[in-house]
Each structure stands twice: as C-alpha cells, then as structure tokens.
C-alpha cells in the first residue's frame, strides 16, 4: 500500500480535508475545519522527504522536529509521534488549529509544488492522542519546594507553567479574566479554536498541580507585592495595548476594538454574561479596518452574527498572489491569503486610508476614506504612500471594528509596580535568559517580544521556564528548542 519512504512524495498528492461548506458553517460558531483521517494522515506524512536540512523544522519557532514525527506516522506509530511532538510543543492540538504554519511555507516540496500538510498532521496526531487517552496529567515525582508565579495565562504562560511544574516547582498562574487561556480563550473565535480544546488542556495543567487564580489582575485585583512571596515570577501578560485610530469621529459610538467584539462573542458562545453594552453585527453594515488575522476573525464573526454587509479594508496594497524575489523560499511569503472567513463573504479592499468618521446621534454612519498609491520598495524594503488625487469616497456603516494590531503590553499595572525596564518598542526588556531588569522576575511571550504568533509565545514560555529552572536549581533538565542541554548542566562539569 505504501511506497518506499524515499519515493512517497512522488506517489501521493497534496490533499487537505474538506471543511464544512460555507452555507453550513456560518449558521453557528462551532469548529468547522476538517481533520485528516488516520489513513490520509499517513499518506500525507509519506510525502515528507525527511530532508537532511529540514527547512520546516528551521522555520518553526518551536523547533518542532517535523521530519521525525512524520516518519513515525509513516510507520503508523501514533503514540511515539505524539511524544515526539510534545517534546517541543506543549499544545499541538492548539497550534495544529491556529498556527499560520511557517513550516509549510518552508517545506522543500513547496519550491516546485505543494508542501506537506504539516499542520493537519500535527493536529491529527494531537487529536488522536486525546481520543486514545494518551494525553494524561504528568505531575512531577518530586517537588523542589520552589514557588513560581506566572502572570497571564495565554499560550506563553500556560506553556511555562506546565514546564515549570513538571520540573517540580510549585506554580501559581494569575489570570485577570474569569477563564484561563488569554487570547486562546477570548481572542480567537470559537469557530477556529473550540473553547473546549483550551479547557481540556487547562484541565491537564490543573491535574498536574498548577494552581490557577482567575479574576486576579495583578496590580489591580491582586497587589503586586504578593509576587514577592514567590521564588521567581514570570510575566506573560501579552501585548494587549491595542493600536487605535486618531482621526476625526473616532470617538463615535459603534466604533470598537476588534478584541472587545470578539471577546463578547466568545463569552456568548461559552454561555457567560456580557458586561456592559453588547456589540453585535446583526443586520448591520460592518467595516473591519485591518486586513490581518484579527480582521479576518471579525469578518467571520460578523457574518455568523448576521451582518448585512461586511467590508474589510486595509491600508497596505494588495499582496501578490505568488512569491516574488523579495520573499524567496523558505521565507514567509507575504502573499495574498484568503482565510476561511474571507471565503464566507465580505468585500476586501486594499490601499485605503481612512480619513474620518461621521455619524448621526453620536452613532457612526459613514466612513470617509481615500485611495492610496504605494511606491516600489526602496533598498530597505520600505514603500512610500501617496493619496490618489480625487479618489475620496464614503462607505455607509453601522459598526466599525478596529483590527489594527497591538502596540505593547499594558504598562500601568504590574510592569509599573515592579519598575521594569522596557525596550524601545515598549515591551519588557530582558537578557538572553528572559530575566528582566529585576532579579528573579522574568518575561516571555508577546509582553516580551511584541505581538506575534502563538508558536512564538509557546516557544518563549518554554525557554523562559528552562531559564527560571536554571536560576532556581543551577541546572535544568527541561528541554529546549535549540540546545540539547549540555549548556545547562550547571553543576560544575558544565564548561560555560
């Protein structure tokens, strides 16, 4: 049935599982993405060429050893593949859903054809693991007696907490919301990442002994001084300060940050109360400003809520359809991506600069904008924009969602209290070992590197956990993406 491993890529074609049809999936907020069957997963794994220079592994921030788990799947060794996957990634079922898959962009098969469906394989392995009961709590055998506080329970915080706990430290996670997960819970819509998926993982952490304290905003609900009781502190508060528009009419009602809109919808899906005024797109003309992932999430959510019309506008020009010389393989190509939400409807426009909003009765009614012309990139890759003369236009709208990205962490609570140094971009500054300007206070994830992908957050959480372990124990046996651990022996035999 299967060819030799070397020739698999010549025998099998790229194949993705079918998603639920648009007409079906927009009816609710359930996950709609298809999963590869085990048999299909194996076939797709067979396409992996086990490159001696695995560009996928290089491109993956987590350092997922993709050829290795593919090889195990070729041999139908699911539990081993899961173990392999977990050796670099705490939450493969999550990254298997939400990661943009830089690995696939770097796949050698992609040079001349279509890459291996790495993300589907990852997800299939992880889901198989849950279904087969292979993913169990792994509490530490011994406790070290050290306590660690993790502030923020997004992907970075969760990954760090799990690693630290497994190393035997007693971990308390502080979360300002009522539910752990950070953006995984309230940022990403449920139709992309089912909330049960996150809760399932949090359940594992809890069973392993991680203590979660929700509704505990450090610096507000909980005094920052409490952190002084811990042997080490890790800040994974995320990059939550959203970028806004400073133009006339921006304070009109009906103009909201995307995250507020998305959070409300998730609370609704989870059957939770919504505090304050409800934002809904039902029967409205919706404009989403910002063409990134969050913008796309707003589009999908608006359509599900029953919006009359959805526009999605973007300042930058429309990206090319294919790679060009400025983004050669294996770099991440900034090409036009059509997300599943875009498939569902809405109208996309590029090179548009929003000039102002006007409204009636304090409510937004019109968006006034102008078309842009972008220059060719200069030697540093920068483009200059120019308004196209007399191209002003107006769109009627009832709801405007700002998905313009995030600036940096909110600096006014715990960061301020601890007096941490920030970097030029307003993120928490650390050394190579993730330690901030204060001893035993560490930072990781978006709060440290700025807004980024979940895989980067998990990566930083894991590496920071290892650094904390070294700081506490003098040596760490926690795994790292980039080192086998000879550099963290620290017991006098280490050469460093």
């Amino acid at each position: 049935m299967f060819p030799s491993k070397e020739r698999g890529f010549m025998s099998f074609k790229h194949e993705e599982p079918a998603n639920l049809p648009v007409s079906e999936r927009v009816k609710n907020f359930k996950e709609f993405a298809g999963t590869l069957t085990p048999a299909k997963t194996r076939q797709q794994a067979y396409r992996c060429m086990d490159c001696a220079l695995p560009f996928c592994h290089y491109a993956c921030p987590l350092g997922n050893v993709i050829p290795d788990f593919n090889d195990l799947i070729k041999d139908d060794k699911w539990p081993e593949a899961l173990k392999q996957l977990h050796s670099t990634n705490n939450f493969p079922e999550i990254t298997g859903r939400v990661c943009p898959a830089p690995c696939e962009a770097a796949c050698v098969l992609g040079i001349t054809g279509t890459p291996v469906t790495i993300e589907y394989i990852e997800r299939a392995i992880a889901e198989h693991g849950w279904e087969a009961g292979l993913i169990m709590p792994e509490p530490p055998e011994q406790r070290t007696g050290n306590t660690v506080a993790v502030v923020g329970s997004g992907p970075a915080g969760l990954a760090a907490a799990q690693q630290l706990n497994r190393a035997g430290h007693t971990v308390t996670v502080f979360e300002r919301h009522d539910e752990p997960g950070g953006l995984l819970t309230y940022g990403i819509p449920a139709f992309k990442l089912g909330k049960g998926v996150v809760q399932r993982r949090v359940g594992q952490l809890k069973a392993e002994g991680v203590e979660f304290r929700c509704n505990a905003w450090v610096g507000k609900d909980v005094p920052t001084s409490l952190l002084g009781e811990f042997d080490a502190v890790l800040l994974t508060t995320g990059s939550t300060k959203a970028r806004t528009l400073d133009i006339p009419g921006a304070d009109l009602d009906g103009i909201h940050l995307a995250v507020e809109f998305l959070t409300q919808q998730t609370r609704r899906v989870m059957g939770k109360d919504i505090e304050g005024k409800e934002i809904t797109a039902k029967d409205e003309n919706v404009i989403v400003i910002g063409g990134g992932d969050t913008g796309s999430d707003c589009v999908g959510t608006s359509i599900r809520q029953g919006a009359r019309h959805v526009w999605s506008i973007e300042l930058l020009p429309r990206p090319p359809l294919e790679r060009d010389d400025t983004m050669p393989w294996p770099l991440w190509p900034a090409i036009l991506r059509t997300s599943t939400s875009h498939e569902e409807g809405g109208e996309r426009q590029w090179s548009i600069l929003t000039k102002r909003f006007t409204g009636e009765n304090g409510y937004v009614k019109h968006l006034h904008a102008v078309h842009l012309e972008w220059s060719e990139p200069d030697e540093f890759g920068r483009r200059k924009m120019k308004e196209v003369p007399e191209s002003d236009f107006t769109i009627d709208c009832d709801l405007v969602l700002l998905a313009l990205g995030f600036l940096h962490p909110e600096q006014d609570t715990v960061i301020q209290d601890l007096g941490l140094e920030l970097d030029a971009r307003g993120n928490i500054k650390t050394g190579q070992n993730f330690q901030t300007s204060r001893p035993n206070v560490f930072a990781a994830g978006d709060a440290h590197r700025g807004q980024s992908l979940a895989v980067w957050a998990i990566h930083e959480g894991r590496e920071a956990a290892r650094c904390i372990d070294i700081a506490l124990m003098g040596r760490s046996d926690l795994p790292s993406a980039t080192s086998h651990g000879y550099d963290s022996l620290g017991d006098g035999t280490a050469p460093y």
Partner: protein
Amino acid sequence: MRAISTKGCYDPRYEHEGCGVGFVVNIDGAKSHTIIRQGIQVLENLVHRGAAGCDPETGDGAGMIVQTPHRFFAEQAEQLKFDLPEPGAYAVGMVFLPQDAEGRAACMGLVEEAIKEEGQTFLGWREVPRDSSAIGWLARENEPVIEQVFVKRGPGLDVDGFERKLLVIRRVAERAVRDCEISSGEEFYVASLSARTTCYKGLMLAHQMARYYPDLSDAKFESALALVHQRYSTNTFPTWPLAQPFRFLAHNGEINTLRGNINMMASREQHFASPLFGEDIRKLRPVLTCGASDSAIFDNALEMLVRGGRSMAHSVAMMIPEPWSGHESMPDDKRAFYEYHACLMEPWDGPASIAFTDGVRIGAVLDRNGLRPSRYWVTADNFVVMASEVGVLEVPQEKIIKKGRLEPGRMFLIDTEQGRIVDDDEIKKSFANMRPYRRWLNQNRVTLPTSPKETPPVQERASLLERQRVFGYTLEDLAILMAPMAQNGKEPIGSMGNDAPLAVLSDRPQLLFNYFKQLFAQVTNPPIDSIREEVVMSLETTIGRERNLLDETPEHCQQLFLKTPIITDAQLEYIKELGAPPPTLWPAGRKAGLKSVVISTLFNAKAGTKGLGKALDRICAEALAAIAGGATILILSDRGVDKDHAPIPSLLATGAVHHHLVREQTRTECGLVVESGEPREVMHFALLTGYGAGAVNPYLAFETLDDLLARGVLNLQGFDEAVKNYIRAVEKGLLKVMSKIGISTQHSYRSAQIFEAIGLSGRLVDRYFSGTVTRIEGIGLEEIAKETLMRHAIAYPTQRARWPELDPGGHYRWRKRGEFHQINPESVATLQHAARTNNWKTYKQFAEMINNRNRTLATLRGLLKFKKATHIPIEEVEPIEEIVKRFVTGAMSFGSISKEAHETLAIAMNRLGGRSNTGEGGEDPARFKPDPSGDLRRSAIKQVASGRFGVTNEYLVNSDEMQIKMAQGAKPGEGGQLPGHKVFDTIAKVRYSTPGVELISPPPHHDIYSIEDLAQLIHDLKNANVHGNVSVKLVSEVGVGTIAAGVSKGKADLVLISGYDGGTGASPLSSVKHAGLPWELGLAETHHVLVENNLRSRIMVQVDGQMKTGRDVAIAALLGADEFGFATAPLIVCGCVMMRKCHLNTCPVGIATQDPELRRNFRGKPEHVVNYFQLVARELRKIMAELGFRTVNEMIGRADMLEFDPLPGHWKAKTLDLARVLYVPQLWEGETCYCSKAQDHGIDKALDHEIMEKARPALENKTPVRLEQTIRNINRTVGTMLSSELTRRHKLGMYGGHLPEDTVWIDCKGTAGQSFGAFAIHGVTFYVEGEANDYLGKGLSGGKIIVRPAKECKFEAEKNILIGNVVLYGATGGECYFRGVAGERFCVRNSGARVVVEGVGDHGCEYMTGGRALILGKTGRNFAAGMSGGVAFVYDEDGTFPSRCNLGMVDLHPLDQESISVVQGMLERHCAYTGSPVAKGVLDQWRRVVDKFVQVMPRDYARVLSEQRAKELARR
C-alpha cells in the same frame, strides 16, 4: 645537510618510495663479471621507474648486492698490505662514514673496536674509489666517505656463525657510534657487512652507477648474482643510507602496517632467546632501526629471523604469508604452517615485490595481492633475469626456455649451491612439513566457539536509556547507523559532504573516537577492493601470549583463535571463564595456557577530571599485575556504570593499556579484549582494534538492538538475527577500512594505528597513542574527562529526566538542538537568494554567516585571522575577470547529477573562463562544439578515475586538463558504484556501457599501484593530449605533501588537495565523517614540502573542500594554493537544498537525479553560478586590498599574513595551536612560491615522433601506411600520440566517424614498454613480434593489437608469459590477439574490446562491463569478480575453471548457437594473425572440444540483453 623542516605540517615518517627491482643470476653459481655488467644494464633499463627531484642529476637512489668479489678483493688486499683469507673466512663491510675527518676516524675506531671485542680480526680499511663528478650536485652535498672494512673470521666459527657474529659487530658498532657524541655520527651507516655479499649503492641514477664506483667496471669484479634496485622517493632529499638494496633485499612496495609491526617487535625482542646467539642476543636490541624506511625495517626483521636460524624462504613466508584463510584449495599442511606462524607474528602487510638474497640463494616474493609486477626469463644456459619489467636485458630470444612472472603470494627461488630453480610448492612444502604444525594447533590452540543461540542481554542496574546517555548515544546512532546495520547487514550510505565542526571545535561533548581520522592509501600503494577481492582479505586473529620468536614449540600456539574481532556477549562469557575453573556456561575441554582477567575501566564520577587520570594509572598497573599473575588475556570492561561511576572512554583505556605494555615490553604477553558500551559504529571498532584490541564486545550496542526490536523499529526474526546482521555490517565496514590503506588482514591491522589525531594534545597522544600524528595540538585528559562527565551528567538529571528522548545528534541531519552545520537552512537560503538576484548585500550576509567564526566555528580556517597590513586602493587589485579564472567546479559525474545541472555548471565556468569538471563518467561529444548561442557545454577538465568510464581518445583530446582522481574527499580509498537503475540510455552511451547494468569503479586505479605507476599514467595522458595539462587529485591526510612532491616529480602540471569534507553522490557514512583531514593541513603541508624540495614553481596547486566565500579563498591562497575548487556552493546556487539523498535518485530539485519527472524541477541557471563566483571574487578583492596584494600570485604562500586567533572563550578550541599550519618555508633562490613554469614531460623523446613521421600520409589525408619499428621496454606509451593526432586532425570520434581498419599498420619487433598502444584508435594496428609489459592497450579506443613471441623463440607460447598485468584496462573498443599468457587483471574494466589470449593470471576480466574475452587456457583465481557486462569464453580443458571463478555476479553456461559462431570467428582471426597452434588445434577438433568452452555471463547483463531482444521483437 639540507632537510625538510618539521616545523610545518610535514612528518618524515610518511615518506614513500616506489621503484624498480631486478636481479640476474647464474643458476649454477658460476661467477663472472658479465653478471655485474648485466645487473647495471638492468638498472639502466629501469631508470624510468626511478625519479629525480629538482636536480635532474640527483637520483633517489640506486644500488646492487653482489657476491663478495673475492678475486677483486684479493688483488686489492695485496695493495693494501693485508692478507685476505679464503672466501667465506673473511667479510667485507661497506661503510658510509662522515665527511669530517675527525668524526670519520672516531667511527672507524669504534668499528675496529667492535670487531675485536667480538673476537674477530680486523684486517684493514680500503677507501672505495669513487668519481663524485658522476653524480648530481645535490647528491654530492650529502655524499659520505665510503670505506670498506675487512674482517677475518675468528676461530671456531662456520660461515653462518660468522655471519651472526658480523651482525653483532654491526649492532655493537652502531650503538657505540650513537652513544659516543660524535656530531657527524648520524652519517655513519653500514650498508653491508657479510662474508657472502657486498652492497654498492648510493644517491644516484642507474647510469651513474658504473662511473661513480669504478670497482664495478673491473673485470675481476665477479659474481654469480646481482640484485639491483632503482628508487623513486617522494622526497628530493633522500639520504644515502636509504638507497636500496639493504643487506638482504630490495623492495618495491610499501609496508602499511609498519607502526604496529614495530611496536610488537619491540615487545617481542625481550623474549628472544637462541642457542645460536647465546648471550650475544642482548646486543642485538633494538632489532629495528628507529626512523628508517619501511623497507629498511623490514630488512632488519628479516635479518633477525634468518640469523635466528630459519631459512630465508621460511622467514619471508612468515612475514609475507599467502592469503590462506580464504584459499579454496590450499593443502592442509601449508595452511597449518601459516596458521601456526600467525600465533608467532602478524604479517607485514602491504604491496610488495621483494627480491632477496643471502649470497647463495636469490629469490623474490610477491605480496598476497600481486600488486607489483615481476617478470623473469630463464635461458638455456642456466641464466635467470628477473625484473619489474620484461625486456630490461637483451637476450637472444632463441636461448630463452621460459618466460614467467611472479604470482601473488608466490615465491621464486634460485639456489646457486644446488644449481636449480626451486618452485613455490617445493619451497613451502619443505618448511610446512618441518614440524607437525597441524597437530600442535589441534592440541593447543583454542577456537572461540560460536554459540548456537545468543543469550538475551544482561540487565544492569542502570537503565538502558541512562547507559545510552552515559555513552553518548544519539537518535541518529539508532536510526541512521545501527538500525540499518542490523536490518540489512550493511553499512549505511549517505551523500553530500561534511560541514559539521571538527570534534575539537564542537561545543558539544564528542566521543574520543571523533578526534581521529582514518588514513588511506593514495598513489604510493593501492587500496584493495574488499568486496570483489575478498579472497585476499581476512578478519581472523589469534590472541594470547606470544613466545620466543626465534623458536618453535607446541606451546607457541596456546592462543585463542577468533574468526572475527567482534564478539557476542556469550562469547565474551567464554573468554571470561578461560582459566577460571570450573566452567559453568561452556562445556569443558579447555586447554592450557589461557587465562583471562577482567579490569574495570570505570572511574569515580565525583572525583572529576582527576579521577580519570588516576583510573588510567590504576588500570595500567592492574594490567601489569595481571600479566605477572599469569593472565594471557586482559578484558577491559566498563560494565556497571551508575550515578557514581563513569566509564573511561574505551579508546583511551585501550590505548593506555596497550602503550603501557608496549613501553614495559610486555605487550606480546597478552591479548586485549574490550567489553564496552561505547563502540557502535564501524569507526569505533576500527579504532579499538587499530590501537591494540584483539576483540571487542559492544554489549550496549547489542542491548540497543534488542530494544529496537522490542520497539518494532527492526523488522527481523529476533535478537539473534539482529546481532548477526549487525556484526556482519561491522565486519564489512572493518574490511573496508582496512582495505582503504591496503591492509588485507585484521591480524596485521591490529595495533597498526592507521589514524591521524586532530585536536588532541601532543602530550596525551605521546602517552596513550604513541606514534600517532597530531599536528595542531588540542585537548588533553582534562577536557576528555569533562566531556565524559557531561554525558554522565545528562544521564543522571537532578530532577526526573525531562528530556523525552536521546540527544538528537544532528551530525547527519540538521537539527536545531543538534550539532552545528555551516550549511544550514539560513545559509542555504541566503546563498540562493544572493546568487539569483546578484545582490552584494545579500551575499555579504551569507559570507558573514560562513566567515563569522563565533557563530560558525566549524573549520580550522575559522581560527585564523588576517594580520593588519597597509591597504591599497581597490582599483589596484587585479580585476574580478582575472580572479575567476582560478576557480573550478568540482568533479561531479553526469550520472551522479542530471544533464541540466552538469551543463549549467559547464556553461557558467566557460563563460567565466574557469573550468568545470566532467567527473567520472565521460561526456557526450555533442558538447564539444559550441551552441549556436555561443555557450560551450564542454567541461574543460576531463576526469580520469578508476572506472575509466568513457575515457576514450576523443574524450582526452577534447580536454584542457586531464585529472587523475586518486581519491575523493568524501570516501578516499574507496571505489564507487552506479546502480543499474541509474544507468539510463544517455549515461550508458557516454560511459560505453549497457543501460540498466550496474557500473563499478574499483577502489584503486589498476594502473597505479605505486608512485612510478602514477608517473606512467601522467606520461600516458600527456601523450594522449600534448596540449592539455595533467592534474592529480589527492585528499588531505598526513603525508599528502610528500605524495604531492612525488606527483610533482612525476611531472604532473597540477596537484589538487581535497579536504575531507567535500561532497559525494554516495558514500558510506563512516567515510564521510571519519576519513581524511581538512584541506588547511594538507595544503599547508603540500606547499611546504614542495617549496622546500624546490618543486613548487613547476606545479599548480589547487585546493577544494567546502570552499564557500572569498575569505576561504584568501586563506587558501595564503596557505599556498594557486587555484580553488567549489562544488557544494555552486550546486546550492543551482537549487540544491542539501537533502543528502543524492544516492536515492529522488532529488526533488532536479540536480542529483536522472528521473525525467524530477529533472523538470531543475531551476538553476548559468548566470546564477556566474553571479556567485563574481561575488566571491569581489569579496576576495576587498580582502586583497586590505592586505595590500595586487595579484593573487603575490599572496600565494604568504601564511605570514595570517595569525592564529586562539579563541579563549571556547573550552576546547583554546587548546589548539596552528603554528605548524602557518609555518612559512624557505624559498630556494630564484624560485617562486607559486606556479611559474612548465614541467618538462620529456614528450620530445617519444618514439611516436618517429612513427608519426613515417605515418605522415595517414595523418595528412588518411592514406593507408604500413611501417616497421623496433621497440624496447624504455619506449613507453607507443602509438598514443599518433592516435590522438589522427583524432584531432580528422575530428574522429563518436559522431565524427572512424578511420578504415588498418589505415596505419605498424610492425614492431622487440619488447613493448609500458602502456603500449594506450588509447589507440580504430584504424591503427600494432603487430608486435616479441612481448609486452604492463598496461598494454590501456583505454584502447578501437585500435587493434596483435602480440606474438619472436619467431626465434622455441618455447610453447601458451605456457609462457607474453604480456604483463592490467592489460586493456578501461578499453572502450578494438580487438586484440595475444599468442601467449597474460598476467594479473587481464581485461580489467574492459567495456568494448574483443580479445583472444591463451591464459591469464588472477582477477581476469575484473569489473568488465562490455566487450568479449576469449581465454584459450588456464585462468587464475577470482575470475570475473565484479564483472557486470560483456562476455568471457573460457576454454576449460580440465573442468576446474568454476572453482577459480568468482560467481558473485556471473553465471556459467555452455556455448549456445550464437556464441559458437562468435567464438569460432574469434579463433579464426586469432589463428590468422598469430598462427597460434592452440587456436588451430581447437578449430580442427571443434566438435570434440566445443563443450569444454564455458561462457561467463554476468547475470544483470544477460537480463538486460534479453529485455532488449524482447523489445526488439515486439517492435518488429
């Protein structure tokens, strides 16, 4: 005296020599002066086998041994005023003395004293008359004063006793000179001191001999025998004493196992006892002359054996045994003789033709593989001449009664006392029956039993995972090395080169094994094909206590006999129980004299680095104590590691005990067995045995296999099968590692130390690996301990281990948490981007990644930095266009890479004015003409590799450079294989083979077994294309500089030094990782030796191996390179993404594949490659401007502009010292340290000029001519230049057509020299009356050659040798008829010639891929080994042929209808051309004999032919 400095990378131990040897003898012992004259004549006719260095008049050495010329000396004695007694009652010593009078007098005094001391009578001195004007100036500079000393035999001694006393005197005198502090004492040397023989020799060329020594011209100077030698050394400064012959012998060859032999001999001599010597024996130690050449040391050992009482023949047979273990038909008594003597001493292994004499008997022996030619004639008047070539002496042909050759492993002996030739069987029978060897063996030797079933692995306290970590196992060890070994019984294959750091530069702990690199044979001796020539290979060994070498008793063979050095757990148990009664596991029946003791090699992990040193002292002491307590087998065991106990690296433990015992001179008292969890790959076992282990039990490897089985990784029956396969894979690998250096037996490989260390401190090596070369210093015990403890710490985590798995390794497949690689995803992507967009900024990023040593500490050049210098404006630096002409691309065959990739590189290099390389495998002549676009797809460099695929006259004529590939960085010393499924039609066409049939490239060039052979091939190629340059590709290893010097003396125009890290299409992984050295070392050594030998300015030096940036080029130039080769980088530019799957034909980017579908994916463009090289040149120009160099020539060899940057932060690299690499050799006056002049190839002296003159009508307008020509052995490569000139003028070839048959017909009379008719083309016919030497019809490209004995010859031609070894090597077409017998390796790699011959030696039709061979007589052993195509017909009169045929790839059939007519046709032509009565007889009785013909048909070939036929039929 001038000598080469050892401050650089040069090491004098790696000097090599090749030569011509010969002798003449009157069988009856009748003395005459004629013999002397003939001896000199033989020498003169061998002159082309010798060499001269920078001074053309200074030869490398020549000499002769004669019987002491009594008549002559008697007359001399009268003048000297002393009485000479009867012959035999006095001895003459030939003594080289210091030039300074005082030192000379002192030496002479000491000699006289020694004579008196030993109770003999000193008669007097005679200054040997010499004419110093006869020799070159360089030789004169070092010329000693030569005096003869006369000694009268003392009372009570017979001649043999006297000879023994003379040996004692020589030893005593040598020691006395050494001990008294005469400054010039090292010039003292006794060339001979014997009652029977005298040796005249010196640093000269043959023709100078008679003038230099007027004695030799005196008519009274008489002898019945003369043994002569002409030397070709790699060094220009060979010393006088190293001229040959030595006291007993002249040697053409090389002893590869010397280091081990020396070490063992040192221990052995402590136990010497002989009633013949009595107390004197002590005066003989040390037996071996420290620092002498391999031949000299061999001579020392042989002398000891002979003087110890064995016959000369017996002693020689001990040192150079026949290949007995795999011999199908050896009589048992002879086998027992060899088995018994294996318990006494290991063989001295290596290619050798040794001619020896004790003054009464004279003989010669050939090594087991027959790698040196030796031909002889016997005349009716009882005269024998033997030499490396035939035709060295003019003898009337009608007087000759026998023409023969020495056969592999066979001895040829003439006893002048008995007045007859004694044949090999008789000689060997005589000593095989001397004692009841078989009975002694049966009663005393213990054979290690193979257990019927392996017991499951012994469980230890520590878990498997813990122990795997302690011993540094990686996931790659399991997945890439061990699992395939256990699954397939073969070593795993990989491709592309090695870009990971040297062990000492890696920041990860490395196994001690990784600090060693395998040495390998190149040029001076051939590697062996351990697969196809398995008959000479053996892994059998014995271990246990050795006894007095000078005696033979039953107890001598109280040893343990092992079939293989890799032993199972159960077998180890057996050994452990030896001498420990009562046995439990194994049945009784144990024999006396064997007792094993286990020594633990663990150390206290808590004691840190000091603990290791202490433990080493402990195990050494325990080893000594055990021996004192009667142990004969020591088991070094690292069983029992745990949290507190770490293992001493097994190699360190082995080396420590081995060398401690060597120093204590008790090494031969016991065998060493290693029980260790560490060894797992082939290299590990090679190292352990190479440093003295007799057997290795890799218990953890077995346990790991058990685990792999349990985890379902292996698809096998069970544990037994896994173990069996794994051991088989290791065995195959070991055989290959041994064969790479030309060693055939494990017994002599053991402790031969065929390795170079890199990154180990001299102190460490001196103590634990004494005698191993380590040139750049490095880590010591402390760092080794640290590495061991790091692994140990990883195995015992402070918390529960969180690492879910073993260390990923990352040596073979890049992993983020594995080993660093220079070529990683980032650098590959950046390089591709830079070259495609021709973007300087991106290129700089790439160069920065590679050059920045902090991030990429992978190479030695990373440890160097440029010194500050005065900048010059960049405009003053020579332009990019000039620089890129120095760039070449690597040899990648069309076959290993696709047509698209191959042509892209060629077009790019032609656009730049650089050169691309065909690689092995021919080139389509369609590419020889420019395309309409103006691009030329022709590769300027045509490679000539061992397979000679596609090497036709046309191919060579259409080249700018012809490159002889001696070795390849990724797998030096190994051959290659192109599997049948890759031999597509187009590939088969240019390789002159059959599509679908596997092609094998042998490990050696079968026409290069020695340096003089290489000189011959260079000469051949130069004749084939007088307009092209000849280059020789070598791989960096210690001694490569001396080989390069030899290559330069052999007139190559260019020498290429390849780094070990270069790429490959397919190579065993152990070779990719563990063989060869970085080019920095090889290049520095080469430059250094060439400059100091004054050979540099006449040869171009090129370097390659992971060359990527302008900085790499700059450093290479500063270290001495004129030109620079790149392969991996341009491939990456063409789209290569380092899949390392070239060997699988599945390259997804269309480069290393022939699959049409995948080839479509190729995206490379010539302009990208052009961009890349220009960017590299641009970077180089910047560096040149910074360093103040205007031209590359100015910077070549300016190592003083570099400095070592010791990198204090790196815990291992900081221990290095690159001073030897940066040594700047002193230039001779008026010379340049770059290539500035041309070699003198001596082409103007070629006989072909005469022939071409006579053949002018054919050359001018193809008019047929017939001409006559007298030929001699000194006329080499006859007919080649003529053929090439015809090809060139008439544009002949694959598409250009051929000349009509017999257009040029040359009637030749005499003895054809080497390479007669090489590359002769269709339409050229040679009709030789006489005989021929080696390499006849090499690369025959359609020509016709007929050889028959001279009409005057009276013997039966079919029983005599007519033509030499390696005939028709790589022939692609033509026909030949030989009325007589051929030597070894007839038709090797023939792919088109149709040939008839009347008998052949061993390895006939080896590697043949096409053509037909009809053999009308007996064949030797191993016929058709590796034969994948073509057909052979053998006339097997007595039905014994099948036992001599290697049936690995062929089937034997009777003749069918079709072949009957083929054979008949061949016979008829043979009859017509040669008048062969054999052919006539067969034809006459055709019906009666037709069923005696055997058709030898390669299986694959038969299958492909029948498929083709079926297709043909279907088409009709």
